[in-house]
């Protein structure tokens, strides 16, 4: 399905009448292609909650119906120029809509604007079109592979990706969750998420962390996996980096003189490893070792969990457990065969 509409973005614009660049919104016309599929092409991959929730499998990705109003023609009729506000859960977070004070990009008043910003916003709009799918008159958006999430009230099946930062309410993209520092509520943290099929670990964590007794969703048949090949993306979640990050963050909240000396010594190798590097550049084996050192120091230096709070300690424990308990594969054959 081809769509042509005007989208807007904020940019630093120098107009004829202004002395210097100032933030303005610019609009331009884009023509985008939205994928359409039949129910045969996009079959249901995973369903849960007695079939009321499901994802469809298309083009190697999971898609989930837009929450609330999901009728495709209704949603598309709310694209510009018929509306001035992005639709939360559909276009919000990907683009802005032109309003009365928006300048068109070809306006002769404009002398200069930042081209790189414009390219980034254009990429966002293309990403939006790429993540839409219309099946049988309903609108679907791309989502993460369904997984278990342990949260204070038990266990649910979740399909969100972690967002890089914490966007505002109206910039919230569908199927993402912001990275907040809240201990209990809606924040993204990898250690509380488990791939489907690792139900007993999730049950054990719900018992240990929140004292909730939940039945094993795998054995109870809570989740119906209709396309087994759609499940089982490699589990390379950055648990160690997140654990290191939040450990140093929680130490940062208290005064330096109040940190027990033993804890400071325990954290020092990790700080040395991470100094001047991006978290992803660090060798995870080294990081795990230093994190383990920091954890033993934490047990001695802060046994009452006053400095690093209990949820943070639990996340640290879980991150290290996952790292050290990871199944080691002795299969040395290359995944791709050699060229004949």
């Amino acid at each position, binding site marked *: 399905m081809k769509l042509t509409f005007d989208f807007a973005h904020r940019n630093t614009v120098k107009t004829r009448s202004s002395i210097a660049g100032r933030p303005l919104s610019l609009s331009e016309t884009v023509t985008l292609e939205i994928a359409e599929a039949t129910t045969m092409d996009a079959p249901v991959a995973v369903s849960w909650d007695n079939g009321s929730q499901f994802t469809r499998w298309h083009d190697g990705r999971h898609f989930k119906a837009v929450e609330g109003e999901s009728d495709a023609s209704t949603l598309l009729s709310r694209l510009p120029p018929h509306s001035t506000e992005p639709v939360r859960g559909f276009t919000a977070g990907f683009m802005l809509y032109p309003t009365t004070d928006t300048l068109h990009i070809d306006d002769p008043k404009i002398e200069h604007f930042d081209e790189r910003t414009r390219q980034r916003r254009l990429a966002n709009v293309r990403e939006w079109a790429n993540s839409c799918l219309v099946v049988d008159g309903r609108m679907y958006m791309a989502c993460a592979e369904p997984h278990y999430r342990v949260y204070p009230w038990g266990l649910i099946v979740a399909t969100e990706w972690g967002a890089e930062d914490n966007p505002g309410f109206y910039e919230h993209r569908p199927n993402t969750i912001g990275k907040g520092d809240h201990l209990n509520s809606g924040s993204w943290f990898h250690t509380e998420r488990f791939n489907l099929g690792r139900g007993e670990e999730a049950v054990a964590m719900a018992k240990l962390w929140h004292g909730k007794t939940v039945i094993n969703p795998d054995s109870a048949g809570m989740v119906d996996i209709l396309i087994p090949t759609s499940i089982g993306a490699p589990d390379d979640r950055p648990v160690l980096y997140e654990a290191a990050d939040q450990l*140093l*963050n929680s*130490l*940062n909240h208290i*005064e*330096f*003189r*109040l*940190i*027990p*000396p033993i804890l*400071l*010594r325990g*954290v*020092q190798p990790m*700080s*040395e490893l*991470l*100094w001047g590097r991006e978290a992803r550049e660090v060798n995870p084996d080294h990081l795990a070792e230093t994190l383990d050192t920091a954890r033993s120091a934490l047990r001695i230096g802060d046994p009452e969990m006053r400095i690093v709070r209990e949820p943070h300690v639990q996340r640290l424990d879980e991150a290290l457990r996952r790292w050290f308990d990871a199944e080691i594969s002795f299969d040395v054959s290359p995944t791709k065969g050699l060229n004949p």
Partner: protein
Amino acid sequence: VKIEVMISYEAQCKSDRGTSSYKGKFYETVELEIVETTAAAAPVATETCQWQQQTRWFANRHFLPRYDEDRRQGKQGLTTEEALEIIQDGTLYALNCGYKCFERNQRPSFFDASRYLEFDFVARDQAIAEAKLCFDRILLIDGDIWVECAEPYLIREEFGSKVCHDFAGGGNSSRPNHRALNWLFHSNVLRADDLAAARSIRVLIPESIALQPERETIIDAAKFLLEDYSCFYLWDIHPQVFSALGPVQALYSGRDRAEIDCEALVEPILHLLNLIERHEDEERIGNPFRIAGYRKAVERWLDRDMSIADILPAQAIGNGL
């Protein structure tokens, strides 16, 4: 004299009627004691030459008077009974300023232990201890109100020097006779019996002067070095600086000012300063004037006047010495 004052505090509690715990505001009256004495028992210890401000010496502590303006002008002011009556459920001469237990909460309820299933008694004990501390610092000398102060010292400032009686950094700085501890505060402080202070302070009881500004200065240096790195993301501290911070922190943290080993602090601080100078690219911390200030603080400790008793072991000094 005994006095009943009203204190209020916030405490986490769980009522027998509700289901969840909440933070409640409470008030109650506690009976405290204000020590009374006479002018003969509390002799004048020091006086400032310019303003004729006297401190009196009682129970090894200095006290400064707190009068109202009428008294100061020689007119009839409040009598002792009137003053105490005002203090009972109000504030007078800012005597209980800076003590949180005397701040008024909105709509506090009377504390009654039988009405709560769970109660945070730690918060209550802290409030009572704070009230005790406040009234422990008040002394009645012949019916006049005197408040504890630090021993007088001279602060050298850019355009002169002045006498000060305030505790620096002893809790809340808005308490009577308290002040905030500025950066390397003690590096500009001189003892009351110093020669340079002789024109400003007259010391009548020599044993009441015990301040060691050299010692306080090097402790200040350690304190503010650690404070520099307090608002710092730990990933961003250079590894060598981090490892040098460890010994300083270990000597400083969890100790009173009185029990810090200053001689041991010298080497770690100098080592840390060298590494900061070499590696720190944060302008706030690596500022050369700042580092020079810390170096001076250490030098002041090293250049202090020492008596033979400080160098020799205790056994070597005979009883006759």
